[in-house]
């Protein structure tokens, strides 16, 4: 039960500015996801919240208290490490009981400890492994022990660093729904770090996208997916990643058009910047694979982009079509029944509403959305 505020937090590793003026406000009982590629500073951010990594400047507040200089054992947080960080000399049971017995926390009787450990072990399906050593477990089992070691406690906040990354697909999905379930009944704040956008969208109340130590955007899954603040945010959400085509934005008769390879497409809604007075300028046009239609014949619409089929892969219940448009590839999701042959000419079209416009220089989203 805690809100966590990171105020202007900086962290350097030698010359590397790992965390750059980080501002985050995590609400009480929120499932907050930090999404980013490896090296973005996600783990560092989490470790600073836990107190095991010192902050170079700025402050961290929990429930309004400045905990920046507090040692980790004083902060009421539990953490799941990506490397599991299990205690190799202790059995699984002792690993999970460790946080209940360590330190200055409220003393529990042996039977209370056992009860708590068994309950969590059952939940995670590791109750038959309690007497083993971590070295005798598979990667997925170890990860569940690491998760269990955090869950036995009732901390103010859970900090989870890629807790599902090493699980195989089946357990991964199972654990994902377990986590969602847990979050309902635990009533604790959860800060969850992942590089998997699917996990982020499925689990998070809000998502922060971190890139090179800077926050790109914070928002609900809907906001960040449908209204990405920058091109980087758009590209980090979705599989296949969003297609980005170079274009030019221009104004004609008070209407805004975007021109892609000489073909104009009317832009819906307001766009920052261009007016009749300003000269046309470079933009990046982002369009998701599922919003593009590919047809063999030119459609009757005014806008269709010609291209050549590069490859068409049928993946079970969907097809992934790669089309060469000018110098680059565009990914299109098709139905599995559609057939395309390589080098065939196709025409791509999409609805103006599905399109995102990003500034060619800064990558900022140029469309203002009423969110």
């Amino acid at each position, binding site marked *: 039960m805690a809100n966590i505020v990171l105020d202007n937090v900086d962290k350097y590793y030698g010359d590397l500015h790992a965390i750059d003026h980080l501002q985050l406000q995590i609400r009480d009982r929120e499932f907050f996801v930090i999404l980013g590629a490896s090296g973005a500073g996600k783990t560092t951010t989490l*470790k600073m919240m*836990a*107190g*095991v990594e010192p902050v170079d400047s700025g402050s961290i507040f929990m429930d309004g208290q400045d905990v920046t200089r507090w*040692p*980790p*054992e004083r*902060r009421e*947080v*539990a*953490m799941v*490490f990506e*490397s*599991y*960080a*299990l*205690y*190799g*000399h202790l059995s699984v049971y002792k690993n999970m009981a*460790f*946080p209940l017995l*360590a*330190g*200055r*926390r409220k003393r529990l009787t042996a039977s209370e400890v056992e009860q708590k450990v068994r309950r969590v072990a059952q939940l995670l399906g590791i109750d038959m492994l309690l007497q083993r*050593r*971590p*070295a005798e477990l598979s*990667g997925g089992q*170890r990860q569940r022990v690491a998760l269990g*070691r955090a869950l036995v406690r009732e901390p103010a906040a859970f900090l989870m660093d890629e807790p599902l990354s090493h699980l195989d697909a089946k357990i991964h999905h199972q654990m994902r729904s377990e986590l969602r379930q847990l979050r309902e009944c635990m009533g604790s704040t959860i800060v969850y770090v992942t590089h998997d956008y699917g996990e982020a969208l499925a689990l998070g109340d809000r998502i922060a996208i971190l890139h090179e130590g800077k926050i790109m955007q914070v928002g609900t899954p809907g906001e960040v997916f449908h209204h990405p603040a920058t091109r980087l945010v758009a590209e980090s959400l979705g599989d296949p990643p969003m297609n980005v085509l170079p274009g030019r934005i221009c104004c004609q008769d008070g209407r805004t058009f975007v021109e892609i390879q000489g073909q104009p497409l009317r832009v819906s809604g307001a766009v920052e910047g261009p007016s009749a007075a300003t000269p046309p300028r470079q933009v990046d046009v982002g369009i998701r694979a599922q919003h593009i239609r590919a047809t063999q014949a030119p459609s009757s619409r005014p806008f269709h982009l010609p291209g050549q089929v590069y490859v068409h892969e049928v993946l079970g219940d969907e097809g992934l079509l790669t089309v060469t448009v000018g110098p680059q590839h565009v990914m299109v999701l098709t139905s599995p029944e559609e057939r395309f042959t390589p080098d065939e000419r196709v025409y791509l079209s999409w609805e103006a509403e599905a399109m995102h416009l990003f500034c060619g220089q800064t990558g900022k989203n140029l469309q203002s959305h009423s969110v």
Partner: protein
Amino acid sequence: MKDGTGKLRSAVRVVGLGLYFAFAMAPIVWILMMSFKNPGDVIATPPKFIFSPTLDNYKAITVGLESYSSESLRPDFPKYFLNTLIIASATVAVSLVLGTFAAYSLARFSFPMKEDIAFTFLSFRFAPELMVILPLYVIFQKCHLIDSFAGLTLAYQLVTLPFLIWVLRGFFEEIPKEIEQAARVDGCTWWGVFCRISLPLVKPGIAAVVILSFIFAWNNFIFAMILGGERTQPITLGILGFIGYERVLWGQMAAATIICAVPELVLAFVIQKYIIRGLTFGAVKG
């Protein structure tokens, strides 16, 4: 074809290892045989491999034997043995306490001149003992430490402490930092982490350095010779006593050597399983 070369290779390996084994074991077997020979058999040429064994040598050095000269009636050997045991144990105990903390600090904390300090410790190991023995002698004399157990224990730190620090530092560095961080988050203080996580995890390393330090201390000669005396004389010097003015008591010397080796062997067997676990230490990391 491939099978043939494989067999050949393993045959060469077996022969090579056999030769090395024979080379390494020959002196030990020879000493062992010598310790059961009577004086005549020891110096016989050509050497005798078949002889009637006797326990006289062992009796002479432990409880004393009438037939030898009067001095061996009250043998000094048990006293030397006890001296060595006291000095070696004390040395290892002191080194272990000091060295574990030093190694942990060097592995985990950052402070100014850290590497220089670590290197200074190491440099004690490659400075020849003879180089430091004279200044040490003068200092010990001023401090009245000559021929005292405390003094020898102190001097032996030069041998065991740097070794212990460097080996244990490596073991502490092996422990992933995140394990210690996890323990901090789980509610342990710095000291709690050290006692409950780090120390148990390096147990195999501690076992290995304890036995090796013990052997170093047990076998030390030069410090004991210069800084020791009648009261504290260890076996290494005591064995020299078998070389007398008119004769060399080869048989007794051999028996003393064999008895000397027993504690080291026992220790090695007791701690062996930890050393083997030390080799598989990596498997614990997750």
